[in-house]
């Protein structure tokens, strides 16, 4: 409550006293000393309830003086003849003191409750913020920023001791000063010996010209860090609650982290078993076909045509196995970081030709349309680019019917080479689209029927990454899929 309000209360009180004096003087039949003094008492009480003590005291003195001058004989003088009137004056003073004290206490309570409510509101908002933190890397810094914002502070730091060093996640600033490790260590070791409930665990510290308050962050009863705040003063209890919330938030991100890691691990396990299953199938099928066909060739029964058929089957399956092993090796080389970039000047059409010849058997009988830049040369690693492209060609051929054509486009701008492969198959199911470049991922449809290990596109991406190139997939509006390779390159 401000001074101006007090002054206004005082003025109002004086006015009320003046008005009642005038009214009582007009009608002497009701104005005995008792009625007048009771009326004045009401004014003093009202003032005490609304304003500070000094207003009530001043009003009670004014009331006393007015009562004495106008209503207590001898009238017109400020002398008190009757000792009874001393009692009246004292009663005025006592009432004003008691009433104003009571109202002050009530007002303080209310203000405190409002502040509490405000801080509980802030804590609630903060807890909502905490629930929104999903990313664990920046979690603590984010948390500090949330506290700073929600509590209108100037500086917030979450400090956690790590290997004898303090890690500080800060928001806001302490001017040119910072929290020294020694201060933190002192506050922390003090907190370690103090039970959770005691406020001695709180520390005040002056850094520069700022008052910094530190409170331990505890899991259970054991402190594992410190929360430092500066700026607006915060209630002790709120500060403890805040530290508790910080502890919960840190624990929560920790659990989220663990959960994420467990998910990744289980995904990896799934991948591994998927790979094993698909490798097992992809190895055993050609091996069985080769084994049986070889037995057939050794037997008496096949005629000339059948022998040719069986030997062709063997050759085709050996090719398939060779491709599989090449892919496994390529993948292993990418994993081992053994793929290096060896750039040279090359025409885009050369890359396309090289890629085609790598997967010649798969493309046999297919109509291939090529529109490749022929004017300019690019400087990049033609082996890597062609190997990546060949994976796309093999896929395009595998996932579209032989009657349809495959289109290869190669264009060059000032900074990069762009190659597109477009087929006219069924396209990529939308659910698979985000995953096609993941290792061992096989589309919903491919998983059940067609051969393949889910390595091709992952290899393509891995090879291109060595050249800082990129690969993307999309479905065309008029059917079929389009894959695009972009490789940064010098151009001339």
């Amino acid at each position, binding site marked *: 409550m401000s001074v101006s309000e007090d002054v206004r209360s005082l003025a109002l009180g004086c006015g009320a006293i003046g008005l009642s004096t005038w009214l009582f003087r007009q009608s002497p039949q009701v104005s005995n000393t008792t009625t007048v003094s009771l009326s004045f008492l009401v004014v003093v009480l009202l003032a005490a309830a609304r304003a500070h003590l000094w207003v009530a005291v001043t009003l009670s003195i004014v009331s006393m003086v007015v009562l004495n001058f106008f209503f207590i004989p001898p009238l017109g003088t400020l002398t008190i003849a009757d000792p009874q009137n001393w009692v009246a004056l004292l009663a005025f003073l006592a009432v004003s003191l008691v009433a104003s004290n009571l109202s002050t206490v009530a007002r303080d309570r209310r203000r405190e409750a409002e502040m509490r409510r405000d801080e509980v509101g802030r804590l609630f908002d903060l807890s909502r913020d905490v629930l929104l933190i999903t990313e664990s890397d920046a979690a603590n810094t984010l948390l500090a920023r949330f506290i700073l914002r929600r509590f209108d502070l100037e500086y917030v730091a979450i400090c956690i001791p790590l290997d004898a060093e303090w890690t500080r996640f800060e928001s806001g600033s302490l001017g040119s000063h910072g929290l020294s490790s020694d201060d933190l260590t002192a506050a922390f070791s003090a907190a370690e010996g103090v039970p959770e409930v005691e406020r001695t665990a709180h520390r005040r510290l002056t850094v520069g010209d700022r008052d910094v308050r530190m409170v331990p962050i505890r899991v259970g009863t054991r402190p594992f860090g410190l929360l430092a705040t500066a700026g607006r003063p915060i209630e002790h209890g709120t500060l403890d609650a805040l530290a508790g919330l910080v502890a919960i938030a840190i624990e929560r991100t920790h659990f989220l982290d663990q959960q994420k890691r467990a998910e990744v691990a289980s995904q990896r396990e799934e991948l591994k078993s998927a790979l094993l299953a698909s490798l097992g199938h992809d190895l*055993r099928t050609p*091996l*069985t076909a*080769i084994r049986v066909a070889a037995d057939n060739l050794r*037997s008496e029964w096949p005629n000339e045509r059948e022998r040719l*058929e069986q030997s062709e089957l063997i050759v085709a399956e050996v090719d398939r196995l060779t491709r599989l092993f090449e892919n496994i090796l390529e993948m292993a080389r990418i994993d081992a970081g053994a793929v290096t970039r060896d750039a040279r000047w090359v025409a885009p059409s050369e890359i396309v030709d090289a890629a085609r010849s790598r997967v010649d058997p798969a493309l046999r009988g297919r109509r291939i349309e090529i529109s490749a830049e022929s004017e300019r040369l690019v400087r990049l690693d033609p082996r890597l680019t062609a190997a990546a492209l060949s994976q796309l060609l093999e896929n395009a051929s595998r996932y579209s019917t032989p009657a349809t054509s495959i289109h290869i486009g190669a264009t060059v701008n000032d900074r990069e080479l762009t190659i597109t492969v477009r087929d006219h198959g069924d396209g990529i199911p939308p659910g698979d689209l985000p995953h096609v470049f993941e290792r061992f991922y096989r589309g919903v449809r491919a998983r059940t029927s067609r051969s393949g290990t889910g390595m091709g596109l992952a290899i393509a991406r891995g090879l291109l990454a060595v050249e800082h190139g990129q690969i993307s997939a999309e479905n065309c509006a008029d059917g079929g899929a389009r894959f695009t390779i972009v490789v940064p390159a010098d151009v001339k």
Partner: protein
Amino acid sequence: MTRPSRILLVDDEVVIQRALAPLLRSQGYEVDVVGTGKEAVDAVTDRSPDLIVLDLGLPDIEGTEVCRRIRRESQAPIVILSARGGEADKVAALDIGADDYVTKPFGSEELLARIRVALRRLEQSEGPELERLSVADLVIDYNRRRVLRGDEDIRLTPKEFELLELLARNVDRVLTHRTILKSIWGGNAVDQPEHVWVLVAQLRKKIERDPSSPQYLLSEPFVGYRLVSNPGRP
């Protein structure tokens, strides 16, 4: 001359079809080829094959389920081609009613032998009930419940004879642990394979010349046991 046996080959891999179909035809079988479980079930109804060669890894229906559906339509023997490393699928299929299996990659002879055994069993089961069976130099007399090696009378306990008879009536065919447990000890014993191990060990001591490297009563690891009619040949 009897009509040629009709075999239904079920495998989704074209290369396997192209290698196996001519092989089977060369042995005088009539061969139908299909690539999915649904087609297989339909073909069983339409063409009533004498034997089915079934790949467990079909694209549309789980292999064991295909097995079950075929069994609803036909009692023709089923020989499983299993490309999976796990024995569980094989055992499940055998328990459902498949007769035998070969594991990919396999040789022609291995598959042909399994097919011959399965077809022969089919013929025998259609003929009159046998009174005795000769397995190499063993003669098993079902009626008198005796086993002879030449003139030597091999004395078996009733349980041992029961096991030998079961295996002999399914000679050359693999019987899963579960099948053996069920038919000798009843349905409550199927979770106690140790019964089989013990009984097989006892039986081997009596019928095998060298129980540590058995010639007649062979283990199929993780699957079951098989009594072979021609020891030393697949």
